[in-house]
C-alpha cells in the first residue's frame, strides 16, 4: 500500500473500527456527495439531450437510446431489447406504439412486424455526449460577446477593487489620524446594508451619472467593498511600522511606501481579495440585470437567463453554459489558492 493510501485509510481503531472512524467516514463521504454531487450532476447533465434531461428517474451519466435506420422507414427508429414469448431476447426497432403494445421490426428482416408488450422491452442505450449543447450557443447565441462583457467587468472591477481597497486599508492601518477608528467602524457597518436596500438610490445615482446601460455602471458601484478593506487592513497591521520608518529614512515618498513596500508585502491578502472579487463579480446577477438592458451589453449571468423563457426553458443550453461560466472561477481558485496558504514574502524580520 502506498504512503498516501495508508495515510488516507488510517483509522483510530487500528485494525478494528472505532465508532469515531465510522462517524468520520459517514460525515466525509456524505459531505462529498452533498457538496460535490450537484457539481458532478451539472457537469454530466450539460451533455444530455433535452429528452434525456426530461427522463425520470434521472441518470447521472448522459445516455441516449440507440437508433437505427431500417429499410422502408423514413425516420431512424429507436432500438430496444425485447423479450419474446419464446423466452429469447432480440434487438428490435420500434415502429410505433399502440396502447401497451409496441410494434417492432427486426432491422435485418424489416418486412415482419413483431408485437411486444411495453413492459417486455428496454431501450438499448449508450453513453453519448451531446456536445452540441456547447457548440450551439456559440453559434446561435452571442456567447462570446457575453463572455467578453463578463471578463471585462470582472477584471476591471477586481483591479479597481484591489487598488481602492488597499489604499483605504493603508491609510487606516498605517496613519494615525483623528477619527480613524470611527472611519473603520462606518466602513464595517456598511457590511450590514444589503444591496436590495440601496438598490433604488443606487439606481438613481447611476442613472443620473449617465452610466445606465454601460458596463462601468456595473463596475463602479461594486469596487469599494468593506470586506476587502477589512481583510487588507488586518493584514497590513501585521507589517512592522519599523519597515515604514526605514523607508521614510530612505527618502521614500508616501506613494512609494505604499506602492513599493506595503503593497508587495500585502500580496497574500491581495490574492485572497482578488479571488473573492473575481467570484463576486463573475457571479453577479441582480445588479447587471438592473443596469444593463441592451442585449449586447449583457454579462454571462444575465445572458444565461435568456434561455429560460416564459413557456420554454432550454435546460440543456443553460446547463452547458453554466459549466462554461464556472470554469474561470474554478481556474482562479486553482491558481491563486497557494497564495492563501503560503505567504509569498515571509516578513524577514525577527
Amino acid at each position, binding site marked *: 500500500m502506498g504512503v498516501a493510501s495508508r495515510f488516507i485509510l488510517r483509522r483510530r481503531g487500528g485494525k478494528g473500527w472505532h465508532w469515531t472512524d465510522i462517524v468520520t467516514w459517514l460525515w466525509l463521504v456524505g459531505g462529498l456527495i452533498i457538496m460535490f454531487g450537484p457539481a458532478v450532476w451539472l457537469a454530466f447533465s450539460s451533455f444530455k439531450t433535452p429528452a434525456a434531461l426530461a427522463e425520470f428517474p434521472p441518470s447521472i451519466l448522459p445516455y441516449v437510446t440507440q437508433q437505427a435506420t431500417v429499410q422502408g422507414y423514413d425516420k431512424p427508429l429507436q432500438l430496444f431489447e425485447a423479450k419474446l414469448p419464446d423466452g429469447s431476447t432480440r434487438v428490435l426497432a420500434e415502429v410505433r406504439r399502440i396502447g401497451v403494445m409496441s410494434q417492432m421490426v427486426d432491422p435485418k428482416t424489416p418486412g415482419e412486424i413483431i408485437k411486444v408488450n411495453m413492459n417486455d422491452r428496454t431501450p438499448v442505450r449508450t453513453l453519448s455526449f451531446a456536445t452540441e449543447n456547447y457548440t450551439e450557443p456559440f453559434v446561435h447565441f452571442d456567447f462570446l460577446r457575453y463572455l467578453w462583457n463578463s471578463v471585462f467587468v470582472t477584471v476591471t472591477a477586481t483591479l479597481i477593487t484591489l487598488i481602492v481597497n488597499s489604499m483605504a486599508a493603508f491609510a487606516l492601518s498605517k496613519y494615525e489620524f483623528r477619527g480613524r477608528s470611527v472611519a473603520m467602524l462606518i466602513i464595517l457597518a456598511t457590511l450590514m446594508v444589503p444591496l436590495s436596500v440601496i438598490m433604488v438610490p443606487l439606481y438613481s445615482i447611476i442613472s443620473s451619472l449617465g452610466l445606465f446601460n454601460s458596463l462601468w455602471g456595473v463596475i463602479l458601484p461594486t469596487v469599494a467593498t468593506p470586506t476587502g478593506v477589512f481583510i487588507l487592513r488586518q493584514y497590513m497591521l501585521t507589517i512592522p511600522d519599523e519597515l515604514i520608518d526605514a*523607508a521614510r*529614512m530612505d527618502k521614500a515618498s508616501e506613494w512609494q511606501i505604499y506602492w513599493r513596500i506595503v503593497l508587495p*508585502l500585502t500580496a497574500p491578502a491581495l490574492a485572497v481579495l482578488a479571488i473573492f472579487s473575481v467570484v463576486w463579480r463573475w457571479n453577479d446577477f441582480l445588479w447587471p440585470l438592473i443596469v444593463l438592458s441592451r442585449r449586447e451589453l449583457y454579462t454571462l449571468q444575465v445572458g444565461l437567463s435568456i434561455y429560460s423563457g416564459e413557456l420554454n426553458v432550454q435546460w440543456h443550453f443553460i446547463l452547458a453554459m453554466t459549466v462554461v461560466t464556472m470554469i474561470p472561477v474554478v481556474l482562479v481558485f486553482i491558481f491563486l489558492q497557494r497564495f492563501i496558504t503560503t505567504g509569498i514574502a515571509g516578513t*524577514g524580520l525577527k
Partner: protein
Amino acid sequence: MGEIKLTDVNKSFGSVHVLKDIDLHIKDGEFVVFVGPSGCGKSTLLRTIAGLEKVTGGEIQIDGKRVNEVTAADRGLAMVFQSYALYPHMSVRQNLAFGLENSNMPKAEVAERIGEAARMLEIEPYLERRPGQLSGGQRQRVAIGRAIVRRPTAFLLDEPLSNLDAELRVSTRAELAALHARIGSTMIYVTHDQVEAMTLAHRIVVMRAGKIEQIGTPLELYNTPANRFVAGFIGAPHMNFLSGEVVEKEVGNATLLIGGSHRLLVPMSDRKLSVGDKLTIGIRPQHITLANDPGSLRVKVRLVEALGSETVIHADLNGEKLLAVVPGQRQISPGDDAHFSVAGAPLHLFDGNGSRVKG
C-alpha cells in the same frame, strides 16, 4: 559634518511626557551612546533626532541649522533599526539601492556605492539573496550597509545588537567600533546594555524617565557617577549601596556609621552635611577585599559564585545585601562568616535625594 545640537527638547504623546528638557551637544565624529532602562525615552529621543517623531518643544540643530520642520528624509541621517527593518521582498542589493534610487542617483554611482559597502561589510556573496535567507548577523550587516551607502551626516543605531546571540554581539561590537574609526562619522547608539555603552562610546548619555541623568566619558561615569541611579546603572555587577549616618564631622573629614556598628572615616569637603545626616555609601564589588582584621565588616555569606578567574560573594551585612568580586578562587561557602574590607576603596557618597556628595 555631523554636529547635532539639542536645546530644551520636549516630547509628549498626549498627556504622557516622554522627553523632558533634553540638552545635548554632539560633536562631529563623536560616538555617543544613549543608555538607560527600558522606557526611559532613549529610543524616542533617537527617533526625534531622526525626524520620525516631531518634537513638542525645543529645537534640534544639525550642523547649525534648525531641522525641527525638516522631514526625516531630508535630514541626511541614516538609521539602523532594532529589527533591522530590511525590506523582505527585495534582494540585499535592492535593499541597499532603495534609498539611493529614491534620491535619483545615477545607476553607476549606486552600483559603485553598493560595491564599496558590500566589500567593507563582507556581504558581497549575499547581494542577490533575500533577507529571509540570511542569518541574524548577516542581516545586521545589511542593515548597517543600508545606512553606509547613504553616506549620511550621522548614523543613528537603535539597539542594533540586541537580536544577536552573545558571541556574535561581542564580535559585531568590535566591528562597529572599527567601522566608526574608519568612516569617522557621528554615530548615536541606543542600548540598554551598559557594557556596550562602556566599550563603544566616546561619551555616554545616561537617561531615566525622559531626563538626562549624566553625560560623560565611560570612565567619568564609572569613577564619579553624578547620582545613585548612574552609580547603580554603570558597572557590572551593580554597585553596593549601604545606608550610613554621619556621626562625627571635622574639617575635610567625616566619620560614618555603617552596618549598625562599623565606623568609617571618609574625606568630605561638603559643608552642608552635619552630624546625624543619613547618607548612602556606594562601593563597587570589585573594590571590596577579604580581610582578617577585626576592624573590617563582618558579613554572613549567602551565595558563592566561583567563576574561576574570580569569585563573586553574595553576603549579608545586618540585613543589607553586599556583593564582592574577589580575584582568584577562594575556599568559602554559604553560611560562613567573612570579613570584608573597604579600606582604600573609592567610596561614593549620595545624599537623601540620591545626588553625589563631594568627597
